[in-house]
């Protein structure tokens, strides 16, 4: 596999402008002759579809949801970053760039991250023009807050519903293009494969989830905006339908999959109260601005929180990281919680929890002020757990949340398959091995509004029309494979639900490829996954047919892909013999138990190349160089 990142020449701050000057343009009259398929209409996909239709391309967009407004992006709470420096506290494009590279623990491409910081400001302008109701100050200007431990206030927000409002903005822009006839919107239609022939993506094969019809869709370029794969762990903060099928299928057709083991475990999830729990609810990171995290000093202390005196409380984040305290980045906070629980200090169900305590904040600023800041989150917590956080501390535990890994893309956001582009959480992104808070929304919208609409034009201008219609042999072959797979699934006729296999896989992955990883554990997972997969293919039960709405069938197809993909994740984690960001190998840590990065040997992105079901994938490397943010060890002490 040839990996050419296509980073433009020149000083880092000028690369993007220079590249835009040099890109080929498609003649306005010709744009409508280019068909672009966009799979996924979350923040990344909806913004891209709207922007490209405005430019004049013939856009066809797909989502398995009943409406673009339901994408997982809707659930983002905290906010979106931009380098506006409105609060005049010293922020700049450079600082956002610097923080993101460093926060990602030096496993991202500098040029991409710099561009992200540059266009971050345009996103806010765009969203405000659309009518996104961001929070404001009394003078009528936009409000900012500090988020995720950043030293500056650069986060824009709309109450606790920032993702919802941004997605509705993009959805409305998309709706306008649908109304104008510039976008053909196909809802409840799931992409099940990518069609590649003669070294170029030619289109996709989809299944209509209501009628069961399998259809070939040809285009001149294909864009995947299909989100992340945290649900490989079964329990995560992601919406239930999030899955890896689109990107994994593209991988099997030749797209490199980069850093699959880079997953983010968010420190403040609500721990599951039992086996019945079907998903983890996130408690916003902003709570750590005022809440203090602690566990009992004595292992096995089962007294109710309020009866544990000050002397018996261990504020372990403040103790271990005096300069950042409760605001250390997500990866650090999550691991510290796990360490306490492993050592027997955990609280709540099964001892897998730590306290997040607002007692001192309530004493300091009063209950009303705390309610004004976090009222909706407190209510949500109260509702789910039946426990009142104004009176007793919350119990929280880390939960899978975001995946930094994804399909490899070059500077133009094109995968290793020409004509196949990947945006949003689905690509291996700008976040390295750890994503900072409020930067996923930024990246999704940067890709969709401001990067891809340019770079895809350059591709189309150079490559021209695809010239392969949906009835060509390359399509009918893939269609036949998709149909055969559905038929095989339906024919198993076993006893167990797809969910039960998913949960089994999730537990294994959480155990062996979650917050901390060891060679031994990963090797065991690599032995166990094929066993679960074999059990799935001989014992899964899918009543009903493939010719109508069949949610069990949909789920089974997604679980089948997770059961293969999980192996790739473990293999990647095993291969990366270092600890960085969200990837923590027990064998590689400092004496104080902190992550030990090994830049001499691992300063690269691992790009996996499919070699057939019976052969191990090949590893390709994109080496990262850091010319602007000097490689250094992150320290939050």
């Amino acid at each position: 596999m040839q990996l050419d990142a296509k980073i433009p020449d020149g000083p880092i701050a000028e690369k993007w402008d220079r590249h835009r000057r040099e890109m080929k343009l498609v003649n306005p009259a010709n744009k409508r002759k280019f068909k672009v398929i966009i799979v996924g209409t979350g923040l990344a996909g909806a913004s891209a579809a709207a922007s490209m239709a405005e430019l004049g391309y013939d856009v066809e967009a797909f989502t398995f949801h009943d409406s673009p407004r339901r994408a997982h992006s809707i659930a983002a709470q905290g906010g979106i970053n931009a380098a506006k420096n409105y609060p005049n506290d010293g922020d700049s494009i450079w600082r956002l760039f610097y923080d993101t590279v460093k926060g990602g623990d030096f496993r991202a491409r500098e040029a991409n991250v710099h561009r992200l910081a540059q266009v971050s400001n345009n996103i806010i302008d765009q969203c405000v023009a659309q009518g996104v109701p961001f929070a404001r100050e009394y003078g009528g200007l936009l409000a900012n807050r500090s988020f995720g431990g950043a030293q500056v206030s650069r986060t824009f927000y709309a109450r606790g519903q920032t993702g919802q409002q941004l997605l509705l903005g993009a959805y409305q822009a998309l709706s306008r293009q649908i109304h104008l006839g510039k976008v053909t919107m196909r809802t409840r239609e799931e992409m099940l494969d990518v069609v590649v022939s003669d070294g170029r993506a030619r289109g996709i094969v989809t299944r209509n989830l209501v009628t069961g019809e399998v259809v070939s869709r040809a285009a001149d370029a294909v864009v995947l905006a299909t989100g992340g794969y945290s649900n490989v762990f079964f329990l995560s903060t992601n919406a239930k339908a999030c899955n890896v099928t689109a990107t994994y299928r593209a991988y099997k057709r030749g797209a490199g999959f980069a850093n699959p083991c880079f997953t983010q475990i968010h420190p403040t999830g609500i721990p599951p109260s039992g086996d019945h729990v079907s998903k983890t609810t996130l408690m916003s990171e902003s709570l750590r601005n005022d809440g203090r995290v602690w566990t009992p000093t004595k292992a096995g202390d089962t007294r109710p929180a309020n009866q544990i005196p000050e002397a018996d409380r261990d504020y372990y984040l403040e103790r271990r990281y005096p300069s950042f305290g409760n605001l250390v980045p997500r990866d650090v906070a999550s691991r510290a919680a796990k360490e306490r629980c492993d050592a027997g200090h955990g609280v709540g169900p099964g001892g897998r929890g730590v306290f997040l305590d607002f007692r001192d904040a309530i004493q300091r600023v009063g209950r009303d002020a705390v309610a004004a800041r976090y009222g909706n989150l407190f209510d949500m917590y109260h509702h789910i757990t039946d426990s009142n956080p104004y009176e007793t501390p919350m119990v929280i535990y880390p939960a899978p949340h975001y995946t930094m890994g994804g399909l490899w893309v070059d500077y133009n956001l094109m995968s290793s398959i020409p004509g196949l582009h990947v945006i949003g959480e689905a690509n291996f992104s700008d976040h390295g091995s750890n994503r900072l808070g409020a930067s996923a929304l930024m990246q999704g919208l940067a890709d969709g509004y401001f990067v891809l609409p340019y770079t895809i034009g350059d591709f189309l201008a150079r490559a021209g029309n695809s010239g392969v219609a949906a009835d060509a042999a390359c399509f009918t072959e893939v269609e036949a494979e998709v149909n055969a797979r559905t038929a095989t699934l339906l024919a198993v006729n076993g006893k167990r639900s797809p969910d039960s296999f998913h949960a089994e896989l999730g537990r294994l992955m959480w155990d062996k490829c979650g917050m901390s990883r060891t060679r031994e554990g990963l090797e065991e997972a690599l032995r166990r996954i094929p066993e679960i997969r074999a059990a799935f293919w001989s014992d899964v039960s899918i009543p009903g047919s493939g010719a109508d709405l069949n949610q069990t069938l949909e789920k089974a197809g997604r679980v089948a892909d997770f059961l293969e993909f999980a192996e790739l994740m473990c293999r990647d984690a095993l291969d990366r013999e270092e600890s960085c960001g969200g990837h923590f190998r027990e064998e590689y840590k400092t004496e104080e138990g902190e992550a030990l990065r090994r830049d001499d040997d691992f300063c690269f992105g691992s790009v996996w190349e499919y070699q057939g079901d019976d052969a191990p994938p090949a590893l390709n490397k994109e080496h990262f160089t850091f010319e602007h943010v000097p490689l250094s060890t992150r320290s939050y002490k």
Partner: protein
Amino acid sequence: MRFKLHVWRQSGPNAKGAMEAHDVDGITPEMSFLEMIDLLNEKLLADGKEPIAFEHDCREGICGACSMVIDGVPHSPERAVTTCQVHMRSFQDGDDIHVEPFRAKAFPVLKDLVVDRDAFDRIIQAGGYVSVNTGGTPDANEIQIPKVAAESAMDAAACIGCGACVAACPNASAMLFTAAKIAHLGQLPQGQVERGARARAMVEQMDAEGFGNCTNHYECMDACPKEIHVEWIARMNRDYLKASLTAKD
């Protein structure tokens, strides 16, 4: 806890549906309503039967996918929650519980508890936006908006598009949904240019979809999980009337 569940089953859009009874056992008070259905579905699957089809995704009250009428009330008799936020501790052990899809002429049933809510998307497509293209917009802080106006716009913008308002209304009216979007954009300076045209286009689309009229029952507001206020409907009517009177066509 144990319950007797009466659930609407309908195998397809054109099939005749009926209520079906199931005993569910081994439920704990911490379980969510959807987790209780998950459990029942596991049991149905183990018996080789088709599980109950229902919509859900975020399971935290924001995506608007979940949509069951529980004991006669969209989302449940509990106030200001979505179906996914209902917990079994709200029920008495041994209760009979009735579960049906959101019903309206404009929301045809696709299967069991799944309905087609595309009509909502088409109302937005008719005009629920500010017509700006990507790029070329002014600096965000060039548009000053009083905090109260921004907050009030946000109150209306909080709608999750679930359709409970329609399911609750005796006339199956979509006024609350439509009015919320008109009020969100109509209270902001960015939304002024197209304010009248937007109200007309959206209201006309709403009527074309076959939603009923508002006859002031206010059931929609009671059922709304986000407590969107009916005052927006009056505002929409004013915008619509004004636009119709001054329209050039």
